[in-house]
């Protein structure tokens, strides 16, 4: 089954006529994802890879009964696109766009929370339930269907760890990228709750990095609520210097907060196994699952 998306996902692509939007629409269609429509204001009536394009989200949703959206719109217009999608009644939004201003992101998240909308991103590779649905830009070939739930703050590192899992015969139930920006829709705790309820998911890999406190909160959640499935964490940036932005807008150590050390300690205290290297994630999970 997996979580967030699946066989019943009918998605629209906002910004479908742009180069990224069009390129990834083709790859998502190739994967079997139901992309039912696209939106680019002013380009309504045209088609992209056989997908009808509309001027507004409302039209696309009404015509095709869509329930999700993936957004490739440039940063200055991305918040507007997200609001439009939420107002049109879509309940799952993947925002690929990076570098959305903080103030815009704060407003989008508040509105989404009130309307019960799940926002994946911004600055995310998206979400994939291998074999069912890919709503994102990740390279499909590294993923296999299976029982591991993966939640990550980084794109390529997810591919690295997922291909390690796949190579060891450990497929994935869901892989979701939280996003590399400072303000993102999903936290590790939100994802853990969903993975906890999902019957296909039997073990979890959390891939964190420096900056913020999402990892610490996840550790606290596991420690206080208990989590019936094995969890392994990897935290990137042990060697990152304070005060420098390491590629992601959200990957910065401010003073003492946000260090890899603090996150690793929190996980260990909560009884979460911590992988020293990316390849250890698959090794530890294989052992936990008795492979």
């Amino acid at each position, binding site marked *: 089954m997996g979580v967030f998306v699946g066989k019943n996902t009918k998605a629209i692509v906002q910004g479908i006529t742009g180069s990224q939007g069009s390129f990834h629409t083709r790859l998502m269609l190739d994967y079997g994802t139901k992309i039912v429509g696209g939106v680019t204001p002013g380009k309504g009536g045209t088609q992209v890879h056989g997908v009808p394009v509309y001027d507004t989200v409302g039209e696309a949703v009404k015509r095709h009964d869509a329930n999700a959206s993936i957004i490739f719109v440039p940063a200055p217009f991305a918040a507007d696109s997200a609001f439009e999608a939420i107002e049109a009644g879509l309940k799952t939004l993947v925002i690929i766009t990076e570098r959305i*201003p903080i103030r815009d992101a704060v407003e989008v998240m508040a509105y989404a*929370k009130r309307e019960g909308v799940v926002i994946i991103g911004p600055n995310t590779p998206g979400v994939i339930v291998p074999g069912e649905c890919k709503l994102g830009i990740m390279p499909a070939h590294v993923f296999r269907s299976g029982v591991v739930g993966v939640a990550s703050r980084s794109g390529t590192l997810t591919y690295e760890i997922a291909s390690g899992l796949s190579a060891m015969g450990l497929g994935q139930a869901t892989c979701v990228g939280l996003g590399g920006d400072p*303000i993102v829709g999903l936290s590790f705790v939100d994802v853990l709750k969903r993975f906890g309820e999902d019957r296909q998911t039997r073990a979890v890999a959390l891939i964190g990095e420096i900056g913020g406190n999402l990892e610490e909160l996840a550790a606290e959640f596991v420690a206080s609520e208990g989590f019936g499935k094995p969890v392994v964490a990897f935290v990137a940036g042990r060697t990152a*210097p304070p005060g420098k932005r*390491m590629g992601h807008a959200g990957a910065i150590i401010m003073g003492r907060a946000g260090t890899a050390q603090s996150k690793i300690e929190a996980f260990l205290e909560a009884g979460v196994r911590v992988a020293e290297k990316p390849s250890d994630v698959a090794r530890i999970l294989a052992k936990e699952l008795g492979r």
Partner: protein
Amino acid sequence: MKLHEYEAKEIFSKYGMPTPKGELATSPKQARDIATKLGVPVAIKAQVLVSGRGKAGGILFASSPMETEVITRRLLTTKVKATRVQSVLVEEKLNIKKELYFGITTDRSSQSYVVIASSEGGMDIEEVAAAMPEKIMRVLINPFYGFRSYHARQIARKLGYSANQLGDLTRIFIQLYRVAMDYDTELIEINPLVETIDGKFVVADARLLVDDNALYRHPEYKERLVQEETELSSRELEAQKSGLAYVSLDGNIGIIGNGAGLVMATLDVVQLHGGNPANFLDVGGGASADKMTSALDLVLSDPKVKVVFINILGGITRCDEVAKGILEAKKRVGFVKPMVIRLVGTNEEEGRRILTEAGIHVLDSMEEAAMRAVEMVKSGG
């Protein structure tokens, strides 16, 4: 992007917040004239974008115009925390009764802005939070209705103020919130917010960081981002111009990879095997041959670098493009330094073929490659 103290104060003053009387000086003579006009004693504050400026000797006091000139000359010819001082702010010296803290930043876990206030101003707020967490007030701002006067009054009350002072503080807090929203700040703080012995409040020092991602809404600062980031090394500036995420470090293994998380993990693995990274360099998603060439140019020209380790996991990025970029750089600068390349993912076979034909060995595993890079440094390349 960080604004200088004097710029932040100009904005605050435009919003009706009380700031000390003072002016910016770029020469000792000018500083002396300002001191004469203001009357002594004065505070002389180096305008540098580093934290801990006071402790590093960047804030001094003078009791005569002559002394102001002497001190300014000294500040303008020395460095504060390795940063050259281009100007000083000469201000009236305040008669301090108490120092408060007031700031607004973002709270990632609640996805909103948060107000932070404390009766213990004047030092690094993170030190206060660590030493006296009970002295820190945190108030989340609801994005639907914002930070309102009653929120400001509640904070002022908790700081122990009433009567006229309650109104004065409320106005300062509300105006700071307006600046934060109007200027898209990711951090804005008054530290210290001084209560003078006659009961007035004054913004003694100010920090304002504009959200880099919102700079398109603030064209007046956008231009400057590249020119004035004084904490960036020249190599970091060059990287910024080529659209590469680069951070200079102290070691001798140059690292290039795609994706911030992967590059961070690469640094970690190198260190785990006993090596020392010379830099963080993320070429980003879908990097072209061109971008790869500029990345290699940047790393190869760094005298610290003894060995280069390229770690590419092709997703959107295509391995053949990366391989072409490496060969292009080879042609242009020549491989004076040994390299370890790990290349897997999209179009891997083609990428490998291109490099192997050119006599460059390619590895599949990130850890094996990291170990190899460390060995190469140890054996002197």
